[in-house]
């Protein structure tokens, strides 16, 4: 197959990496410290909890979410077409689904020809092992609403937005062909500006870790990639005024029973800041964090943008506590990002040899860049 198709498939293969189940290596670890105060009912406990337990609380009374958490899973964000109508699998089906998905995702395969092989770099031990397991509740998609488990359809986009999407798709195509014009042809993650720290938090191939810190009046969520922290005030203060925009937006939170409810606004208008080319001015994301037991937290997000999707949509991803046995480590990115130069100098060398990028096939490269 030609370069571009294989590049597309490889690119999509990485996209698959949204789904892996948390499964601690070497058995369950429990957190090092636990502060509990007596008997608070866990109002609104998630249905996935085996039984409701009293809410763990910090000494100042907030539900305790502190610790290092991992969100890897192989369950896809969207329900696969051939599982339409099946939101949950029975044990036998789940085992098969997990096996097939793991076979599709594993990096240790060497079959499928050289194009597939080069794109599978690197072997499984460089990847997050938890990403080969589906969620414990055997759902067929992380999306729980709409009921079909799929992202809702798009509303008609303005010509301006369609043009912007096409331009980004062209840049992606140049980049995937190894012929970027400038660093602008590369995505925000490749440029090390934002990665999995941009909400919503979605599982990926590795470093699926989040460190939650709390203090009176604050929750801070520090994702591994790229070393940032969302420090969320809980005191009810208003958002920043609309003229201040940030790459990770501006976040406010409050506790609703055991659940931390988090709302983020004030996103920058650059490509890739909000989900899949949504409209930053009308995009809204609400996230909910609920600890269901000592080692599990449910992360749920709802995204809506009437200028992009026909309706809001919601996904739920279980997080597993991994500390103290496993830690999150610094993910410096820009500091040693040699590949930016490799891509650019490589493109210039190949241009000198007369190579060019062909026209982008219609429909290639999914609409919009995160």
């Amino acid at each position, binding site marked *: 197959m030609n370069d571009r198709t294989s590049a597309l498939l490889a690119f999509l293969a990485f*996209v698959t990496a949204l789904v892996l189940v948390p499964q601690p290596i070497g058995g369950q670890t429990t957190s090092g410290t636990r502060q509990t105060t007596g008997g608070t009912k866990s109002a609104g406990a998630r249905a996935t909890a085996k039984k409701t337990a009293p809410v763990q609380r910090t000494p100042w009374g907030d539900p305790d979410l502190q610790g290092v958490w991992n969100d890897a899973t192989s369950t896809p964000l969207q329900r696969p077409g051939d599982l339409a109508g099946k939101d949950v699998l029975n044990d036998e089906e789940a085992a098969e689904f997990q096996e*097939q*998905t793991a076979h599709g995702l594993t990096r240790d395969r060497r079959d499928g*020809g050289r194009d597939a092989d080069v794109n599978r770099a690197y072997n499984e031990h460089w990847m997050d092992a938890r990403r080969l397991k589906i969620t414990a509740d055997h759902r067929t998609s992380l999306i729980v609403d709409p009921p079909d488990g799929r992202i809702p359809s798009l509303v008609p986009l303005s010509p301006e937005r369609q043009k912007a999407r096409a331009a980004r798709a062209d840049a992606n195509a140049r980049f995937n062909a*190894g012929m970027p014009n400038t660093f602008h042809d590369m995505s925000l*993650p490749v440029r090390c500006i934002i990665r999995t720290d941009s909400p919503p938090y979605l599982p990926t191939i590795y470093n699926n870790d989040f460190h939650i810190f709390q203090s009176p009046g604050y929750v801070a969520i520090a994702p591994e990639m790229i070393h940032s922290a969302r420090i969320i005030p809980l005191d009810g203060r208003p958002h920043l005024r609309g003229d201040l925009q940030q790459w990770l937006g501006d976040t406010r939170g409050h506790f609703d029973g055991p659940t931390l409810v988090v709302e983020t606004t004030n996103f920058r208008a650059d490509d890739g800041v909000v*989900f899949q080319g949504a409209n930053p001015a009308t995009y809204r994301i609400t996230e909910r964090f609920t600890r269901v037991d000592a080692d599990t937290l449910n992360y749920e997000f709802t995204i809506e943008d009437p200028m992009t999707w026909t309706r809001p949509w919601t996904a739920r991803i279980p997080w597993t506590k991994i500390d103290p046995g496993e830690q999150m480590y610094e993910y410096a990115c820009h500091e*040693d990002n040699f590949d930016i130069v*490799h891509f650019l100098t490589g493109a210039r060398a190949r241009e000198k040899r007369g190579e060019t990028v062909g026209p982008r096939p219609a429909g290639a490269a*999914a609409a919009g860049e995160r």
Partner: protein
Amino acid sequence: MRTKLFGVAGAFGLLVGTTMPALAHHAFNAEFDANKPIKFQGTITKMLWVNPHAWIYVDVKKPDGTVEEWMIETGTPNTLLRRGLTKESLQAGTQITVDGYQSKDGSLRANGRDLTLPNGQTLFLGSSGTGAPDEIKPKK
């Protein structure tokens, strides 16, 4: 033999309309040439335990006696650190076999598709998360 309950087209069916992950990783065959597979043995001179990719420097002796210095691109070191490895886990002087693909621009750079030690063991596979560093020392 168990009958398949679901079509494996699902594997790519999963992907249709799926979101781009925040880590929209580059397609490796954009940088490394599927038509230029390489496989050689060499001596590790150093390893850079850096993100977004760790790099292993390998000296490769050519038949004519000259030495080429290759840079091998690997994954994120953080995964290895969580399994108990440290920057001491791969020492200079270690012999290694690199099975990968050379950079499209022809430079002495490759992605390390399979990295093995002389005894056939996959590099870094050993540690099982016990927390004990997995030391890989050069053969004396």
